[in-house]
Structure formats: structure tokens, C-alpha cells
């Protein structure tokens, strides 16, 4: 690992502010104008267990955390034991002397000091932040301001505690890692926040969701900022209600979006097909976690690709896209909202826990999005399912003197139910034509990201793109990274170029679904498929070695 990257890990029990400490540290680095990638590893529980937060920072763009840290803060024995294996060569272990006792590294009486204040358990995170501040040589004023803005409750005690820890740590390892300032201070967002904001920037009116990790934070974010953004957030009784309400809202003209994870999304499939039939513009968010079934709720995987591509019974057009960075998550969501409205068919933003919940510094220009453009009825008798060349019929919203009928049965152009063979065939063709219309439209859009221009071709998608890019960066491997942003329709026209190359596929799947997709649709026969399926994202260093092994 090039020393330009600095990594900090803080472990501990859930409910003790570990994740908070990670995010505050990320903020500290960001305030220095540095870039940050912060990943939380936590279990499906509220308090206890073992949690950790990894924050990696660099002056340049950074697209992954690193699992080996320069600084570990271990508030308890379990953290000490687990994370001593995560120290980099130059790494320092700062541990809680009160819980770990005599051990290798730097012991700090985090608990003894915390006990001087009420609710000592909740302070340990503040101690971890103070430790980082001391180690990177932040001045006390900066630390004080940080605590003030990030721990608004019981500020005075928190500041006092932070100062004490800073003063204990500083003489031992203060200023050990002098981090340089970066170019500018950037906002930090999670993938889900980027998507929520991207949807808002793209014109979202209503968001429906039933909580399910790792999609819940979109609902929480939009519920918290509803008035501010002019977006309505609704949490109904179940996912089936979510999807059907959303379709009802789309009928009434609202730009709607729904979100869930595999199990909840599975429940929406009947209505997904309904959206295909009534030609409802509907954007869905699918945040993956390791499956099948309940699986491993708070961890990550890319095992829902085929599931996303083939949802709903019957034949109709759908659009599936997966962003490869937080910025792309933002822009792509707005773009997808436009596409589903343009083609009046359901679409899916596919991502996973790693992207959904990791916190990253971003450069986002909110102005660079546009609001959906839709074919709208321009007068005369309205026919909801007017048979047009590209299969897309003009929209009209109630209230209107014209009759607007959306129909889940096969129907004629007016939206009245039919069993007539020639009408059935005509409407099947109309809906199927939209597939071509979507594909044609995408041909003129940017559908594949290509990074680099020499070396072996690495094909990847979604959050794994971030891991691959960081792996190449950290070991200075020259390669071309090709990431289809759209997965349905798959931009075969772009990908075919790489058919003759020596290709490596990287994905978080045991079955190798992405590799199969490329083989089946594009004819790419990869030289190697690098897979991971233990619920954890790739570590760039480990991934770099695996890439080197196969090139």
C-alpha cells in the first residue's frame, strides 16, 4: 500500500458509538480537504456483538476502505483480538487499558476517564476520535469544534473527555502520522443518501418503502428531509402495498420510487409485472445483501443480479442499472427516473450494502440533472395505449375530461379489457417494441464506464467497481476497467469490443452471475473470474494480489 493512504479502524460493541466515531473521523479528514472512504462492518443486532468502522483517507480520490489500518482503537478485548490482525506494518494499536490490560500497543484508560462523566459507555467513541486527532496532529481547537458539531448532546462533558484523552495520547504517539491537507473540503454521503438526493434532483415526488436493510436509510433520509426537499415519504404496511401505492401515485402523475432489499423486493414482483402491463413509470431501488432469503442482513453481496434482470411474469421492457460510485449513484438515479418516465416501464437501480451504506467524500453538481421528459397528450380523443412506432403512448393525468384507463388485463388502445387475439398480439408487440426503443435510446447515451486504456481488461459492475479501481491504484496495476452502468438492456454494442481481449471479471457472487451474463449476452469468455461471497467487500490490497495472480 502506498503510504498516501491512511487507515483508521475503531471496533467495539454495537450501540457504543463505534459507527459514529468512524463517521466523525471521516468528517475530520474531510475537513482537512482530504478524501475519505468509510465502511462499517456491523451485525444484525442493536447492542453488543462486535462492530467496526474503517476509515481510509488520501489526498487523492479513494474508492475503498483498506482492511489493514495504521491506527486501531480497541475499546475492548474483542476488538483488540480481532483487529490486531488488521495492523499495517507501521500500524499502531491504541487499546483501552481498562478492559484489555497490559498488551502490545498503547494502552489508554478510556473507561476510567469516561467514568468521570455520566453514561461512560457512550463516550468511548469520543475517546477514539480524540485519539485520531492526537495521532494525526490535529490541534485541540479543531478537535473541540468537531466534537461540538458532531456530538451535540452533552457537549461540555464530551469536550472535556476528548481533551483528556488527547492529552494522554499525544505524549505517546502524538503527531505520529502527519496527514497533509487536501485540495478542498467535500461533502460526505452514503450511497443511499446519494440515491435519495439524486432522486430528488431528478424530480421525485413520493417515496414508498417498508424498512429493510440496506435500503431503509433512503426512507429515513427522505422522511427526515421531506418538507425541505418537497418529497413525501410513506412507510406502509408491507412491500406489496408499497409497490401498488406507488403505481397508483404514478397514475395520478407523481414521480414515485420504491425501495427494498431482496426479500421485500420479491414480494413486489406481482406488482412489478403490473407496472409492465399498465405501462407505469416506476423506479425501484434494490439494495442487495447476501442471500438467499434472510441471509446475512447487514453485509454485502451481488447475488441478486439475475433476480433483478428477470422480475415479473410475462414479457415487457424493463431497465436495470447499477452505479459504480457515489457520484454515479446520484446522477444515475435522476437519469433512471427520466428513463422510466420516458418509456413508461419499470426500472431498477441495483446496488448493495457496500455502496448503500459506505460514506464517501463526493464531488456532486446537483445542477447536472434534468427532470423527466414524458410524451404527453396534446389534445383530441385520448387513448391511453395508443399504438405508436416505439411503443410509447402519450400520458395524460387526472383530473381530465378525457377518459384515462390503465388496465392490468390485456386491453385495447382505450384501456378497455380485451380477449381478442389480434388485439392481444398487437399489444404484446407494442410493449415488446419498447425494449428496442430503450436499447436504441441507450445507444446514444453513456452506458459503460471505461477507466484506463491499456493492460488487461477487467469487467466489473456496481460497488465492486470502487474496489477494483482502488486495487489498481494501490498497487499501481495498469489495466482497463470496463463497467457497464446499464445491465438491462445490456450495452452489448459497447461491450463487444472487449470480446477478443483477455478479460478478467470481478464480482461479489459465488455463482458468477455477472460473468455468465457477459458470456451469454456478449460472448465474453473470461480468462479468470475473481469472486468473493463471504458477505464482505473486497480489500483493495487483497484484490490487487488476486488480480496480479491472474494477469
Amino acid at each position, binding site marked *: 500500500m502506498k503510504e498516501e493512504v491512511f487507515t483508521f479502524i475503531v471496533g467495539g460493541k454495537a450501540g457504543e458509538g463505534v459507527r459514529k466515531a468512524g463517521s466523525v473521523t471521516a468528517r475530520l479528514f474531510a475537513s482537512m480537504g482530504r478524501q475519505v472512504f468509510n465502511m462499517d462492518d456491523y451485525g444484525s443486532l442493536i447492542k453488543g456483538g462486535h462492530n467496526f468502522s474503517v476509515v481510509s483517507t488520501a489526498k487523492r480520490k479513494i474508492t475503498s476502505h483498506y482492511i489493514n489500518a495504521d491506527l486501531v482503537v480497541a475499546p475492548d478485548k474483542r476488538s483488540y483480538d480481532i483487529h490486531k490482525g488488521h495492523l499495517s506494518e507501521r500500524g499502531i494499536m491504541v487499546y483501552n487499558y481498562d478492559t484489555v490490560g497490559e498488551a502490545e500497543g498503547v494502552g489508554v484508560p478510556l473507561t476510567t476517564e469516561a467514568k468521570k462523566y455520566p453514561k461512560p459507555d457512550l463516550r468511548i467513541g469520543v475517546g477514539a476520535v480524540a485519539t485520531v486527532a492526537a495521532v494525526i496532529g490535529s490541534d485541540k481547537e479543531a478537535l473541540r469544534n468537531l466534537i461540538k458539531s458532531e456530538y451535540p448532546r452533552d457537549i461540555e462533558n464530551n469536550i472535556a473527555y476528548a481533551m483528556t484523552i488527547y492529552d494522554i495520547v499525544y505524549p505517546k504517539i502524538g503527531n505520529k502520522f502527519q496527514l497533509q491537507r487536501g485540495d478542498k473540503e467535500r461533502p460526505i454521503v452514503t450511497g443511499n443518501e446519494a440515491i435519495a438526493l439524486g432522486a430528488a434532483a431528478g424530480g421525485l415526488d413520493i417515496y414508498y418503502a417498508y424498512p429493510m436493510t440496506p435500503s431503509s436509510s433512503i426512507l429515513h433520509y427522505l422522511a427526515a428531509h421531506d418538507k425541505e426537499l*418537497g418529497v413525501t415519504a410513506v412507510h406502509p404496511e408491507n412491500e406489496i402495498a408499497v409497490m401498488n401505492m406507488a403505481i397508483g401515485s*404514478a397514475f395520478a402523475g407523481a414521480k*414515485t420510487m420504491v425501495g427494498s432489499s431482496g426479500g421485500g423486493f420479491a414480494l413486489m414482483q406481482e406488482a412489478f409485472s403490473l407496472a409492465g402491463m399498465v405501462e407505469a413509470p416506476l423506479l425501484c431501488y434494490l439494495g442487495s445483501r447476501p442471500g438467499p432469503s434472510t441471509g446475512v442482513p447487514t453485509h454485502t453481496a451481488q447475488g441478486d443480479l439475475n433476480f433483478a434482470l428477470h422480475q415479473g411474469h410475462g414479457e415487457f421492457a424493463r431497465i436495470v442499472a447499477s452505479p459504480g460510485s457515489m457520484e454515479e449513484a446520484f446522477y444515475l438515479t435522476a437519469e433512471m427516473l427520466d428513463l422510466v418516465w420516458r418509456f413508461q416501464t419499470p426500472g431498477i437501480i441495483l446496488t448493495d450494502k457496500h455502496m448503500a451504506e459506505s460514506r464517501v467524500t463526493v464531488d456532486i453538481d*446537483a445542477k447536472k440533472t434534468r427532470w423527466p421528459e414524458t410524451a404527453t397528450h396534446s389534445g383530441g380523443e385520448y387513448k391511453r395505449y395508443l399504438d405508436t412506432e416505439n411503443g410509447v403512448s402519450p400520458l395524460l393525468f387526472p383530473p381530465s375530461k378525457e377518459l*384515462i384507463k390503465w388496465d392490468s388485463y390485456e386491453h385495447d388502445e*382505450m384501456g378497455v379489457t380485451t380477449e381478442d387475439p389480434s388485439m392481444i398480439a398487437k399489444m404484446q408487440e407494442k410493449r415488446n417494441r419498447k425494449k428496442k426503443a430503450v436499447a436504441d435510446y441507450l445507444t446514444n447515451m453513456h452506458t459503460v464506464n471505461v477507466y484506463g486504456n491499456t493492460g488487461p481488461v477487467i469487467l466489473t459492475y456496481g460497488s465492486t467497481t470502487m474496489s477494483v479501481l482502488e486495487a489498481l491504484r494501490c498497487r499501481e496495476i495498469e489495466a482497463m476497467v470496463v463497467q457497464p452502468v446499464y445491465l438491462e438492456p445490456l450495452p452489448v454494442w459497447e461491450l463487444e469490443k472487449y470480446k477478443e481481449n483477455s478479460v478478467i471479471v470481478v464480482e461479489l457472487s459465488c455463482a458468477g452471475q455477472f460473468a455468465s451474463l457477459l458470456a451469454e449476452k456478449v460472448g465474453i469468455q473470461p480468462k479468470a473470474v475473481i469472486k468473493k461471497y463471504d458477505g464482505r467487500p473486497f480489500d483493495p490490497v487483497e484484490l490487487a494480489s488476486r488480480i496480479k495472480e491472474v494477469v
Partner: protein
Amino acid sequence: MDDLATYAENTWCLGCGNFGILGAFKKAVRILEEKGTGREKIMISAGIGCHGKIFDYLKLSGLYSIHGRSMATIQGMKIANPDLKVVAFAGDGDAFGEGIAHMIFAAKRNADITIILHDNGVYGLTTGQFTPTSEKGFKGPSTPKGSIEEPLNPLALMLEAKATFVARGYPVKLDHLVDIMVQAVEHQGFSFVDVLQPCVSFNNTYKRYNALVEILDHVPDSYQEAISIAKRQDKLPLGIIYKEEKLPYHKALYGDWNPVTKRMSKEERIKRIEALLSR
């Protein structure tokens, strides 16, 4: 000329109770128009089943939904544009089988919607299986020896779920049903109309209903009274059984906002996003 009819061929069985529901609703729409609610503001939806065909027969805008979901569909319409009046025609299998969760929650949150239940005690369109409201012992192709389950009481269940408008009608008492429908649509909150609908093909209840129905002479004064009326077995009281004024869901959700007509401008939205990002 019937300007509320479409060109769709009516395929209900001769004598089906659905004809009365269709007729009553057309009358109700005309009355609502007279009272100022234009038909272009009345959105309809329906489940799948014989009842659902009313969607095709009515020249009103809306969305022909799927089995058990029309009450979710219209809630979505209402939330998107609260200026609309939304009505779902539901079957008993539809609303109290597949869709029971939506029924209970729509009532519980006082969604401002109207449900008209075509309660024929049978899955008509799928050839006569028992439904949640079928009597114990009902014989259908999935229960050839008779249903072994107790029926649900739709009125009592909706009352338990905190519905703010609960009524029962009978197409044979057409004008009475029309009046209930008008009031149900006008009610600001969750309104539920249980229509006793004979199915001449699989559950012909005309005789029984004719003998048992009885028009209520007043709207009961209390929830307690409503419950006991809902549970009467000796008679089938018709009329508004319960009515209560309560803030409807969309108002509690966003006051007098309207996501579609009061949409924030793009510029304003972007400004606010930028502010959030730079926080």
C-alpha cells in the same frame, strides 16, 4: 343515452347482483356531479373477479388493479393528488382474502378512500370457491365437502380496524344504496360499503337477503351500537352503521400539500439539495 357506459360487452350472468351495483354507482356519480364533484375527479379501481368488470363498464378514469390490491392503488392515487376522489370496487375474496392487510391498514390510517365491497360470499370469476365471508359448510370446488372455516364479519372487522365510515347496502334497495354511495364518497376519510351481492351462479342469496334486510332508521350514535348492529344475525341491517369525523391520512401526512399540483420547482429543489450537501 348512458354517458357513463363504455362500449365493453357486459358479461355478468343475468340476474347478478352486480348490475344493481353498477346502476347505483352511476346514479351516485350523477348526484355527486350535481353536488359539485365532477366525474373527471372520480377515479376508480377494482380487483380481479366478476366485481372487477365494473371497471370496464364505467366510463370513468382509473386503474384496473390486481387481485387484492385496488385499495393500495387508490391510496397511492389519493396521496399523489388529494384533489381526486378515489373509489375501489372490491370482491370479498379480493378485499378480505388477498387484500385484507390493505383493508385493515387503510382503515387504521383513515386513508381518504372509498371501498365498495361486492360481497357475494364466493370467488365468482374463478368458478365458485369459498371466500373469507362464505358461511361454514359452503360447498365449492376447493371445499367439496363444505368449508370448515368460520366466516369473517367485514363490518365488524372494519370497525375494529377503526374505519370512520361503515355501511351496508343491497342492490335490491337501489336508491338506498345510491344514497350510501354518495355519502361514502363524500366522507373525508376511510369509507367502507359492504354490498350484499347475490351471485346467481354460485351463491344465490336473493331470498335470504330479501327476508333479512332491514333499513336502519338512524345512524347509530355510538361505536358500541355500531358493533352490535354489525354483529346481528337475525337481521341484516342496511344503512350507515358508523360515521366519525377524523383527520384523513393525507392531511396528517402533509397538511394541505399536494405532491402533484404544488410540486416544488426544479430550481428550488436543486438549491435545497445543494444546501443539504454542503451542510
